[in-house]
């Protein structure tokens, strides 16, 4: 039966994606950027929408939620997967609401008003069947995919608004977003970049070689020298792994030290993060790897740092620049509150 073939093919693809995620997490496979993960997750969700068996929106949401839970469990630190799942769920809700005829405005009211007025939920359990729902949802997901493809370019386009000539910019580790950002600015302006190498993986070295190939004056410094050179730095521009709901960051380890040093010298800290990195989580449990070297010694190697929102000056995303205090509003536009827990 063609349906069964499609289903097995689909589950194979999901399995392949999951194992890919797990492998990347353990460091064995090639490290891929968050943008690629987001794109692959979204195309996989589109495929699920197209090929899985469902008759109404509620079923589809169940399927996607289930697959989403599996995917996030495979790699808890890669939050982009969960974010994309939540985006797609929101898309489904919107399309359903539009098909039903209720206006979108009603759903996007002020959250406070919604609390007061909504006694029972206005949406029932999404059991109504619409023939064009599938097509609409797939079209919306395609729009999401185009948006994802353009994020890095959108961010880089804003580079010249934030970098003036003869600046000294500091960054840490390797972020493809920041790399594109700086390269775009370097086409028109001359400035100097200091890269902290971010031991023990030293991704800063790759960043420095890549930047210097574009004729940008780059200097590599060890992590210990961050505070020593900070007094001569004009701006700190970093990327991040996740943007949390309170405006804080989960970023590569060493970022908190960098942020504190920047705060001490009153240097602005700019975070370049596309919208798909926004995550509804708030609390943070550090993700660490333990290893025993000598029998009497514990060694810790945390992978991520938590940076509180007070240390951040500006977020640059594909929809423009925002202060950290505005992040919670963007969150409510992207995700539905019921989807925060998958």
């Amino acid at each position, binding site marked *: 039966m063609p349906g069964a073939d499609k289903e097995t093919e689909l589950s194979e693809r999901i399995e392949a994606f999951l194992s890919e995620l797990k492998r990347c997490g353990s460091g064995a496979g090639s490290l891929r950027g968050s943008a690629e993960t987001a794109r692959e997750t979204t195309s996989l969700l589109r495929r699920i929408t197209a090929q899985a068996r469902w008759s109404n929106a509620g079923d589809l949401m169940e399927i996607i939620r289930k697959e989403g839970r599996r995917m996030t469990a495979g790699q808890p630190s890669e939050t982009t997967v969960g974010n994309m799942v939540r985006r797609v769920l929101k898309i489904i809700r919107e399309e359903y609401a539009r098909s039903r005829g209720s206006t979108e405005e009603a759903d996007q009211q002020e959250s406070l008003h919604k609390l007061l007025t909504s006694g029972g939920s206005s949406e029932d359990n999404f059991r109504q069947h619409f023939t064009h729902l599938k097509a609409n949802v797939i079209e919306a997901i395609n729009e999401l995919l185009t948006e994802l493809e353009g994020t890095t370019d959108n961010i880089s386009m804003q580079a010249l608004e934030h970098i003036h000539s003869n600046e000294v910019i500091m960054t840490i580790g390797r972020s493809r977003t920041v790399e594109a950002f700086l390269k775009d600015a370097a086409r028109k302006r001359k400035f100097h970049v*200091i890269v902290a*190498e*971010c*031991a*023990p*993986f*030293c991704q800063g*070295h*790759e960043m*420095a*070689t890549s930047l*210097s*190939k574009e*004729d*940008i*004056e*780059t*200097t*590599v*410094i*060890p*992590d*210990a*020298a*961050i*505070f*020593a*050179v900070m*007094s*001569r730095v004009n701006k700190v521009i970093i990327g991040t792994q996740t943007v949390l709901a309170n405006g804080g960051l989960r970023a590569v*380890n*060493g970022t*908190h*030290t960098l942020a*504190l*040093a920047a705060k*001490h010298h009153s240097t602005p800290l700019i975070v370049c993060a596309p919208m798909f990195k926004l995550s509804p989580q708030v609390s943070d449990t*550090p993700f*660490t790897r333990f290893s025993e*070297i*000598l029998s*009497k*010694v*514990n*060694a*810790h*190697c*945390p992978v991520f*740092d*938590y940076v509180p929102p007070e240390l951040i000056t500006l977020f640059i995303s594909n929809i423009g620049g925002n202060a950290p205090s505005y992040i919670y509003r963007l969150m409510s536009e992207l995700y539905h509150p019921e989807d925060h827990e998958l």
Partner: protein
Amino acid sequence: NITDSDPDGRLTVTDKDVKLQEIALAKNEGKELTKEEKQRLRKEKKQHKKNKKDDKGPPEKEKEKEKASVPAPSKPATQSPAHKAPAPVHASESAAAAEKPAKSKAELRAERRARQDSERTSKQGKKEGGQQSASSKPKATPNELQPVVKRLPEHVQVDDPAALKKLAKKLERQQVPLRSDYGYKVSLFSHLHQYSRKSPPTLQISIPATVIHPSIVRLGLQYSQGIIAGSNARSVALLHTFKQVIQDYSTPPNEELSRDLVNKLSPYISFLSQCRPLSASMGNAIKYIKKEISNIPSQCKEEEAKGKLQACIDSYINEKIILASEAISKYAIEKISDGDVILVYGCSSLVNHILCKAFEKQRKFRVIVVDSRPRLEGREALRRLVKKGIRCTYVLISALSYILPEVSKVFLGAHALLANGYVMSRVGTSQIALVAKAYNVPVLVCCETYKFCERVQTDSFVSNELDDPDDLIVTRNGKSHLENWQTVKSLGLLNLVYDVTPPDFVDLVITDLGMIPCTSVPVVLRVKNVDQ
């Protein structure tokens, strides 16, 4: 002393050539030039310069090195009066000009010698002007009663070609090899040297080196390769080597030990500072030795003098380093309570000593060792502490924010304490103090008083040390991204050695004189100088 035989100093051409050839030969063989040869060389150069000046005729402002009491009227006929601008008598000004005053050299030297003798006798027990011993020439300006403005040390003037030329001349005179810089220097640090470990200065010395004592050569090599590292270790090694030098020293005829030995030590010190810039503790030790040597009375017999000097050095090491660390441990152990989690950074001999002593006194604590690339000195500290049986955890400095919530105290060592209260220490220390402050964890700095320094500094740029930039290259799984960094034009690697911590990050400084706040350093310095 040997006076000039010929005031006009014009040798015939053939004599000059022969003499210069002989001198060049002697230099190449590494033999020490005799006094006559050195003088002839000097005279030749001076004559050459004088001739050039007469031809060019630029008005040069000459700074006299004498005090106001020197009679200035007798000017020799060789110098046309137009060339001599009114020389301001700034005896206390530093940055000596190139030209010596054009009086008869014998007269000048005799005058100066007489004045120095009288000053020395009157200055017993008075405060000496603090001059950087490492950079002072053998014919130094006479010490002033009021503190002199210190001459800027050579090792922070690398971007000044005049200063570099002066250094090259001085090293050539002392027959010490000049080390050349390596690699692309980051523009913010173009005023500092950057050497490569792969080209030690001993490559240019002939073996056996007769000008520089062999134990000094060995010490210099150990410094430049990083075999001896750490402020205390370097000072102790230096003092032991000087003991050896004094042992092997024999006064030449017609010379006084007190003057000649100091002159002998100067090229050694230049050589050591070429291998690796001197630390503040080494500078203080050298100052002490030079003072002790020049205080040897002239009637003292050589053996007796040597014995006295060796005893002085031994007592210095004993008092300032060994006993000081015992005193500091005693104070510091009061600050360690049971159940503490103590954070240390890198490998400080003093902090390791304190922790071992506290462990022996049955205090219950555990230690977190923070380490940083590229030196990774924390591994050495870890080894020592684990050998003692202390429970340790090891992290890299980027994990600091992760580990600090567990920490109850931070103990840091220091390379030097500056007069404005800043702590100069291994790079990364200021970062640790900053993050500890943000988490409200007390920061205690442990430092002996002999490391206190009269310099002031507010940032880590103006005076620092640049280590070999190739150390930053790391190879992982057989590939390294920075392998060919020299070929990429706009890529620079920065390997700083020291940084300064502002005093508001430090809660307490534990010294052998007691527990003081960071801002009390100039008080201690003043007390020390009054004592001496």
